[in-house]
């Protein structure tokens, strides 16, 4: 879609040196590739031949695999080998194969991705279709803000019809978006290159047919990618806990082995030395023997650190990620976007989120502005959007705009009386819409007759101009000194005399135009409070009525804007414009002088009315926020918006509520002010805590942790971005960052239910997240849709979620999870996250249990076999236990288990809380597992021991032999752990049943096969257990023993669990009980939260945050050819031209051209942007 054509990627071969040298070899405009230097780029890690050795080498660098390799080495030492080599080799090979397969797939995928990415590059602009080689680009992806800027290429290298040899020397890849230095050497001359000549990856061409560029940086070297923050390898808290536990397990393994080695030493001294008649000793020294025994037991007991653990964890995470991908309830049909788990290693962390950091625009809101209501001359037009429950009303009565051939068919309005008023030529109504058609900085493009396309700096403006267009005042085109509009079908040209631009202080903009009739008028729109101050006294009555309407609009959560006008006296204006010109050219205090002039002329205005624009929230946002806060998840909104806008959205999405005890606004301008405001806020929340102003965070293992403080009542906090300056260290401010202030802020913010940070830069977003991460030890999630959210999504938050299909793909590409709508977040967390966490914890608990039990039996047996490292079980059993007999049942549990279904999960968001508190798997529960295993292993060893002691078969033959005992114990073990699994599982699907019973059946099938005559005759030494199964499993006392151990292993578990449920039931128990009760009765009615949207607040901004671009509109640089002639003029290029599809079809206006009711068009259209140095993105 972009016309940026890179036809020569040049090898950048000197990253080390300061300057990179790029050789270029320009070709003709055709698309042939000419390679001078080698431009080959290697994006894959392996090739066919290197894969095996490289991959193996890499895999053995992982500590777990290296450990097993070490075990294998131990096993081939005959003196130590207590187990056959295959017991380790078979699992190891399996694990290596699975991992290698995964690595291979990843490599293939990333190779394709890289190849795809590679052509997204930073370019040096060479030429374009526009005069002076201008290009117009939109930079939304780069900075998250919408900029409007111009750009021209280096004038020296415009045409090149001949092959040309030149070299570019430039800076090495870096992340500075706002500067570039380089030199182009060409034909013996050197031209300096600066930022103005570079097209960065992430820009989109607008209104430019084509351009040529030279690739400077490609792929990961582009400034955009460099700016995305370091891709940190994210690990879940379970991962970190597991690492600690594995270390602990290693310690414990060493401890057990030492105990047994000491045991061996004593045994060898006391017993072994005398037993030599039958068992000659290889070494006389008991100490050496105990040393060997230590290693022998390391081999035998290594199952406490099972190699299959890591593989299983990966499989479970992968499975649970697929569930997210597959979830139809997270699929957004409008733009055909399913949810996507882009990272498959973080699932269980989704069940532990404590803080959600959300972007506003495009995340909470759709970034679609809808002209919803207006009041003109004291009469209110437009119907209510919401009923009293906060539900959107379905409105069928839609105005037919067919009378107006230039109308935007997607604009929807619901009040006929306004059209009537327009048709009746009501003067005020006409003036109202004329103002809307004239007073703005929107650009129009008309490719085909009647197909207008507006490019606006702010979506509000676009919405207003579109409204005017539909009501018969069509803004058609503009030149620097004129605006042409079609007024009720009549073409009118207004002479544009001055634009009194918007800025943050003025909060209004005006235009001074001369009508075709020659009348001079000033049209002004702005925040109601500002306009009201400048109205003529005659309007006072109208003001009262309008104020009433404005309050009503604000109550509906609409953004309001007051409109006023004034006719100017020719003489006065001439004098004014003269002074204006002087001020404009003044060298000193130009801004101040201009402001003064503007102030002077914008007075005694006549009120026309006010507009009300709906900043459309995404569907279900208030409900989602309510649900999440019920789940004790704290939501912080971090937005670049103004305080008023952010606050307003906070109210409309139910984050801030009228019934909150207080909403604190922190907007101090100095360090002291901010500190004071924060303290005051805290004092009013918690009067008794105020004294300790020098608050010190608790030290927890050297890391400071700010503990949660409980406050009575609900509070909200709105903090202005510029106050963040005092919080964030890297900002070059006069105020040095005070550490205490950072904590002060965090402490206050954490006491509040809702926190909104407005006017924050992308960097600050990341810093706020980092702050919480650092001091709260809580799991954080960042959600956003734009490139300005990338820093927090990718770098800082534990989990990054991207909203797909919105402001470009940058956020999605750096996210861990992506979906199309904010409301899916509740499903991601409350259903998928919770289940994943539950499953992972259950898995880990059970996995440790089954392996510890398995291993501890060896420990007990050691005391009866002279600490000789004799295994209890058959070696085949040891090999297959984790791989075959117990793998599938526990995987089945970890993939299917759910305590309650999704409906109930939503019904009881409190079910989410245990995850935040790490209740399901912690060090404590790990030790409980170990103790439980200890008990089970005692049962599993001593019951068979006692039951087989001195006993014989029913035909008098041997049954207390080692092989029968091994078979008995392993069968007991398998039954015990399978039954235990049954009690862990709360959701028995047919698959689970199949896995559990199948594994048991598999055990018997494999056992009988391994112990069969046939296997033995093939390889006598590998299958020495021949006949054991047949000879012992037909004995009743064997089965009675199995039965006894199985029951005895689970009885205490059941008793304990039952008593716990009775005595101190958890939230899960309660809900599960409720579910059970409700099973008889029909499903619970799905409660729809009643969201009240009453608010007396209002905000009035139909402007963007940045300085308006009135400047540009009037400047001579703004060169436009007549729109209609353009498209034909460049068809010779032979390529698809940038086709701007018309704007959204409903009553909406989106700055990025996002359609509201249908899928994304082929072209992502957006406002007219020209390129400019980005300096405003950071304060």
């Amino acid at each position, binding site marked *: 879609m972009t016309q940026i054509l890179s036809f020569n990627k040049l090898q950048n071969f000197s990253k080390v040196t300061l300057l990179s040298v790029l050789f270029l070899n320009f070709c003709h405009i055709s698309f042939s590739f000419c390679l001078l230097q080698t431009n080959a780029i290697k994006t894959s890690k392996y090739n066919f031949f290197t894969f095996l050795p490289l991959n193996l080498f890499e895999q053995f660098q992982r500590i777990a695999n290296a450990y097993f390799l070490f075990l294998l080495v131990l096993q081939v030492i005959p003196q130590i080998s207590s187990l056959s080599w295959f017991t380790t080799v078979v699992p190891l090979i399996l694990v290596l194969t699975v991992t290698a397969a995964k690595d291979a797939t990843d490599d293939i995928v990333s190779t394709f991705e890289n190849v795809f990415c590679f052509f997204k590059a930073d370019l040096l602009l060479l030429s374009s279709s526009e005069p002076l080689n201008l290009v117009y680009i939109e930079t939304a992806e780069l900075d998250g803000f919408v900029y409007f800027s111009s750009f021209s290429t280096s004038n020296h290298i415009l045409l090149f019809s001949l092959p040309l040899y030149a070299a570019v020397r430039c800076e090495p890849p870096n992340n500075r978006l706002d500067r570039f230095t380089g030199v182009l050497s060409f034909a013996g001359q050197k031209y300096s290159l600066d930022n103005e000549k570079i097209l960065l990856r992430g820009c989109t061409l607008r209104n430019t047919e084509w351009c040529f560029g030279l690739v400077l940086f490609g792929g990961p070297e582009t400034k955009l990618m460099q700016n995305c923050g370091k891709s940190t390898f994210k690990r879940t808290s379970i991962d970190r806990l597991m690492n600690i536990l594995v270390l602990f397990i290693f310690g414990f393994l060493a401890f057990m082995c030492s105990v047994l080695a000491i045991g061996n030493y004593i045994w060898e001294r006391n017993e072994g030395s005398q037993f030599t008649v039958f068992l000659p000793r290889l070494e006389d020294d008991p100490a050496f023997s105990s040393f060997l025994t230590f290693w022998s037991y390391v081999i035998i007991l290594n199952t406490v650190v099972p190699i299959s653990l890591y593989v299983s964890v990966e499989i479970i995470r992968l499975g649970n990620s697929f569930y997210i991908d597959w979830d139809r309830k997270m699929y957004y*049909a409008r733009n055909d976007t399913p949810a996507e788990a882009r990272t498959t290693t973080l699932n269980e962390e989704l069940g532990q989120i404590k803080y959600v950091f959300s972007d506003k625009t495009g995340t909470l809101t759709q970034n679609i502005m809808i002209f919803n209501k207006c009041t003109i001359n004291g009469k209110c037009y437009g119907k209510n959007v919401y009923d009293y429950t906060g539900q959107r009303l379905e409105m069928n009565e839609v105005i037919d705009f067919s009378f107006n051939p230039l109308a935007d068919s997607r604009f929807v309005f619901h009040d006929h009386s306004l059209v009537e008023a327009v048709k009746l030529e009501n003067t005020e109504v006409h003036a109202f819409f004329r103002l809307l058609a004239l007073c703005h900085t929107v650009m129009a493009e008309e490719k085909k007759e009647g197909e207008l396309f507006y490019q606006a700096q702010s979506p509000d403006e676009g919405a207003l101009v579109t409204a005017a267009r539909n009501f018969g005042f069509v803004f058609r085109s503009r030149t620097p000194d004129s605006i042409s509009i079609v007024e009720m079908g009549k073409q009118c040209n207004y002479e544009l005399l001055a634009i009194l631009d918007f800025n943050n202080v003025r909060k209004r903009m005006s235009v001074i135009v001369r009508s075709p009739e020659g009348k001079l008028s000033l049209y002004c729109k702005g925040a109601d409070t500002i306009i009201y101050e400048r109205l003529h006294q005659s309007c006072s009555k109208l003001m009262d009525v309008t104020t009433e309407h404005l309050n009503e609009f604000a109550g509906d959560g609409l953004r309001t804007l007051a409109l006023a006008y004034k006719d100017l006296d020719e003489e006065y204006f001439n004098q004014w414009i003269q002074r204006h010109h002087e001020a404009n050219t003044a060298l000193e205090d130009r801004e101040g002088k201009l402001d003064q002039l503007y102030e002077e002329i914008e007075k005694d205005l006549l009120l026309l009315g006010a507009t009300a624009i709906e900043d459309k929230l995404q569907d279900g946002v208030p409900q989602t926020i309510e649900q999440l806060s019920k789940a004790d998840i704290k939501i912080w909104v971090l937005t670049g918006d103004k305080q008023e806008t952010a606050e307003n959205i906070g109210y409309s999405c139910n984050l801030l509520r009228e019934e909150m005890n207080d909403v604190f606004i922190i907007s101090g301008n100095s360090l002291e002010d901010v500190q004071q405001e924060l303290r005051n806020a805290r004092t009013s929340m918690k009067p008794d805590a105020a004294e300790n102003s020098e608050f010190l965070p608790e030290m927890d293992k050297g890391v400071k942790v700010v503990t949660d403080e409980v406050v009575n009542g609900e509070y909200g906090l709105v903090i202005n971005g510029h106050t963040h300056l005092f919080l964030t260290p890297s900002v070059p401010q006069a105020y040095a960052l005070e550490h205490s202030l950072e904590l002060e802020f965090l402490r206050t913010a954490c006491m509040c239910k809702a926190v909104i940070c407005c006017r924050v830069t992308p960097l600050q977003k990341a810093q706020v997240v980092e702050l919480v991460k650092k001091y709260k030890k809580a799991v954080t999630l960042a959600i956003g849709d734009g490139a300005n959210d990338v820093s927090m999504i990718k770098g800082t938050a534990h989990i990054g979620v991207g909203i797909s299909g919105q402001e470009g793909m940058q956020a999605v590409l750096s996210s861990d999870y992506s979906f199309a709508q904010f409301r899916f977040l509740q499903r991601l967390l409350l259903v998928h996250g919770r289940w994943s966490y539950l499953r992972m914890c259950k898995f880990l608990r059970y996995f440790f249990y089954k392996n510890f039990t398995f291993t501890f039996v060896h420990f007990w047996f050691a005391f009866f076999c*002279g600490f000789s490292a004799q295994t209890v079980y058959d070696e085949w059993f040891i090999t297959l236990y984790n791989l075959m007999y117990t793998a599938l049942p526990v995987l089945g549990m970890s993939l299917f288990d759910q305590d309650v279904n999704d409906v109930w999960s939503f019904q009881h968001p409190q079910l989410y809380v245990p995850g935040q508190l790490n209740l399901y798997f912690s060090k404590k529960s790990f030790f409980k597992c170990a103790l439980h295993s200890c008990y089970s292993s005692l049962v599993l060893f001593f019951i068979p021991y006692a039951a087989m002691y001195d006993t014989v078969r029913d035909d008098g033959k041997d049954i207390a*032999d080692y092989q029968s005992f091994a078979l008995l114990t392993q069968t007991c073990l398998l039954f015990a752990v399978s039954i235990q699994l049954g009690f862990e599982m709360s959701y028995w699907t047919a698959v689970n049943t199949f896995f559990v019973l199948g594994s048991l059946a598999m055990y018997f099938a494999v056992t009988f096969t391994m112990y069969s005559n046939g296997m033995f005759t093939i390889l*006598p030494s590998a299958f020495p257990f021949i006949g054991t199964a047949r000879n012992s499993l037909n004995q009743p006392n064997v089965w*009675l023993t199995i039965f006894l151990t199985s029951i005895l292993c689970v009885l205490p578990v059941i*008793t304990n669990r039952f008593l716990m449920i009775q005595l101190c039931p958890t939230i899960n128990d309660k809900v599960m009980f409720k579910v059970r009760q409700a099973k008889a009765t029909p499903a619970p009615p799905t409660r729809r939260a009643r969201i009240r949207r009453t608010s007396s607040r209002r905000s009035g901004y139909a402007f963007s945050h940045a300085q308006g671009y009135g400047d540009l509109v009037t400047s001579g640089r703004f060169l436009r050819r007549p729109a209609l002639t353009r498209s034909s003029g460049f068809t010779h290029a032979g390529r698809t031209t940038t086709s701007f599809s018309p704007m959204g079809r409903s009553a909406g206006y989106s700055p990025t051209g996002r359609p509201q009711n249908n899928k994304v068009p082929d072209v992502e259209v957006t406002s007219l942007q020209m390129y400019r140095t980005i300096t405003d993105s950071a304060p």
Partner: protein
Amino acid sequence: MVKQESESANRPDNTAFTQQRLPAWQPILSAGIVIPGFVLIGLAFIGIGVALLVTSRSIQVLELDYTGDSNGSPCSSCSQSDIANCKCSLNFTLTTLFQGPVFFYYGLSNYFQNYRRYGASKDDNQLYGDLSSFTSPSSSCSPYNYDSSKKPIVPCGSIANSMFNDTFTLTRTVSGTTNNVTLDGKGIAWWTDYNIKYRNPSVTPLKNAFNGTVKPINWAKPAYELDASDRSNNGFVNQDFLVWMRRAALPNFRKLYRRIDASGDYQKGLPAGNYTIDITYNYPVRAFNGAKKIVFSNVSWMGGSNEFLGIAYLVIGSLCVVMSVVMLIVYAKFKFPDEE
């Protein structure tokens, strides 16, 4: 940027599996299940326990230690000397009929047949009759794979070398006359051991197969001459050898020596009377504080005598019943979950 043609090409499949709606059984530990369950299990266990205990008690066991530790015991002289084939005898009296079929075991204690290196010290291929393993026994047999003159030992390894070599004869004295009680040594090993796991090389005479090999160091006779009376009971399929090679799981164990031949007077078992066991005492156990004993036992449907299982079932059954009462009390008192 290329759009999918189909409106909802990416819509996930609506299956019970992908939507995690698989039908499932969701049991919870409610009082209605747990308490009756415990009562039932408890009662069942008590029932099984009683049956086991009664059965176990009905089994007759007679144990006679003949280690000869104490000076007064019959075999003390043999135990203290190193004379081969030292003879001693034990007398015992049965007052009632020892119900048949009666099994004659020898028992060893503090004997670590389950020691890892001991257990590994054999060559399965050799014992399977593989002649190549005769000439070069597996190194696992070390140090009993070659003798001092580097000749291969067959059967090699510690287990074979340490084969139990005491022999017993049982006589009964009826009114002054001493009758031999016929002991049946056929089929005392596992069928699979005798028929599959252990095989003599198919060389006749068997002796030739052992050419170039030597007998285990502790053995008095080579493997092919273990049983002079029965030619088929020689080599690796000798029943006593097979019984010995099935190594015990625990340091105290008993192994089947013979069955009392149920013929003539002994059809119903061992009648009451005075018996003498003549022991050829060879096997040294005192060095490692081991003990040797002779055990006569009959069996029931549940095998040999073992009171543990019966008692364990009884105890756990009773515990279950007690726990169910406790649970009932707790449940009645707290009655979770109250509607809240």
